[in-house]
């Protein structure tokens, strides 16, 4: 059983819902989205900006704000609501000093009056940064990218029922197995796109006037796939050899993407989390592994809950 409320100036409405309710999350740069159709009656009265909360079997799923209303002749109002991440699509200019990415999230949340939840300490301190006329999303992702470059740790920014939340990707593993018996259909693709089996990093040493080159490679995979080279320039602070080795470890694997249709729903599943995929009999390789959720779409009807997932990983 689900429960959907819209609050307009202190009055809570329980709208009559026509059809499915859809909840969508994406891992990067998009707010969570709830879409539903409201049957217009004499009681219901709501506006853009009103708070929408959605619960499933008593558990919190989505808290956000009415954004779009589309009406038609049949007196059905199609509503799109976004969570507060929507407010990170606006722009400003920031110059900051000695802050961690987690501090940047807190700073922006406090300046924009966003509700803060659990913000994991990202550790790495960014000495100084200037972001001019950029979306809050871009300012935060820039700080998270700098953190990744220096710590190799990935973080997920999302809204947890009305609270801005930052968590490391590894802490977002869910104890849930999706496989052949729990999903209706799937689509599996392996590719050499974005795969590199040789990493070449160049550092222009200003003191000696020479270019120093760091190379890490996997000769077996070069024989197999041809040479797929990643090239980048690095600055003094980074240790070239270590960085080349780390990048090789990260990129020297086939890129796999998997989309799953109509799996049995679980509200813990959102973009940024990882779950266990169990597809033992597909083609040349079987997957029994954690995969990262890039996008998740949940569909709720009266007594049913299904989800479509886009997943990514490397082999």
């Amino acid at each position, binding site marked *: 059983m689900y429960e959907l409320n819209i609050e307009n100036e202190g009055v809570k409405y329980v709208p009559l819902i026509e059809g499915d309710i859809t909840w969508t999350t994406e891992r990067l740069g998009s707010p969570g989205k709830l879409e539903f159709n409201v049957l217009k009656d004499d009681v219901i009265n709501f506006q853009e900006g009103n708070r929408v909360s959605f619960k499933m079997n008593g558990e919190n799923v989505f808290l956000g704000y009415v954004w779009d209303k589309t009406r038609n002749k049949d007196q059905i109002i199609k509503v799109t609501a976004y969570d507060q991440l929507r407010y990170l699509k606006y722009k400003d*200019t920031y*110059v900051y000093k000695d802050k961690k990415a987690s501090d940047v999230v807190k700073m922006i949340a406090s300046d924009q009056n966003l509700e803060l939840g659990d913000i994991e300490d990202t550790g790495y301190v960014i000495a*100084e*940064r*200037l*972001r*001019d*006329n*950029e979306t809050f999303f*871009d300012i935060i992702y820039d700080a998270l990218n700098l953190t990744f470059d220096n710590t190799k740790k990935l973080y997920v920014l999302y809204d947890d029922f009305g609270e801005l939340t930052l968590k490391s990707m590894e802490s977002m593993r869910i104890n849930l197995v999706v496989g052949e018996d729990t999903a209706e259909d799937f689509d599996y693709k392996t590719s050499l796109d974005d795969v590199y089996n040789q990493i070449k990093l160049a550092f222009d040493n200003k003191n000696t006037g020479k270019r120093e080159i760091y190379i890490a490679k996997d000769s077996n995979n070069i024989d197999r796939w041809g040479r797929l080279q990643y090239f980048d320039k690095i600055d003094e602070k980074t240790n070239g050899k270590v960085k080349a080795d780390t990048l090789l470890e990260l990129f020297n694997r086939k890129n796999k993407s998997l989309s799953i249709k109509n799996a049995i729903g679980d509200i813990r599943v959102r973009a940024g989390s990882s779950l266990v995929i169990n597809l033992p009999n597909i083609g040349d390789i079987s997957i029994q592994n954690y995969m990262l959720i890039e996008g998740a779409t949940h569909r709720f009807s009266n007594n049913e809950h299904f989800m479509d997932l886009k997943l990514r990983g490397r082999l």
Partner: protein
Amino acid sequence: MQLLKLMKRAGVEAVDTASPMKTLIGTVTSIEPLVITIEQRLAIPASFLLLTDNVIDEEVEITVDDEVEQSGSLEPHKHGYIGKKTHIHHKNLKVGEMVLLLRVQGGQQFIVLNRVVSA
């Protein structure tokens, strides 16, 4: 048509996010420490600024071969003023001056090219 517009806008925004090289006009709002403000919204602190020798005090060596005239208690007479001399050109920025800035790709460095005035 609508889609084309959206794509164009998305393209422009993608380029802007990379902070490409761009010229800007700024005003010097502080000297110690140096701060240059653009469009009254972004105060760029010294650590993001690179100065060219157009805007810093510079020691210049010049060679002269000239005379100076001296008057006073004696009859007016001339002295030679010849050789290599060291001059200091005081070109440090002052509060209120307008400058031409070049933003380096990535938006983390701004080169102060020179001061400018409205014609």
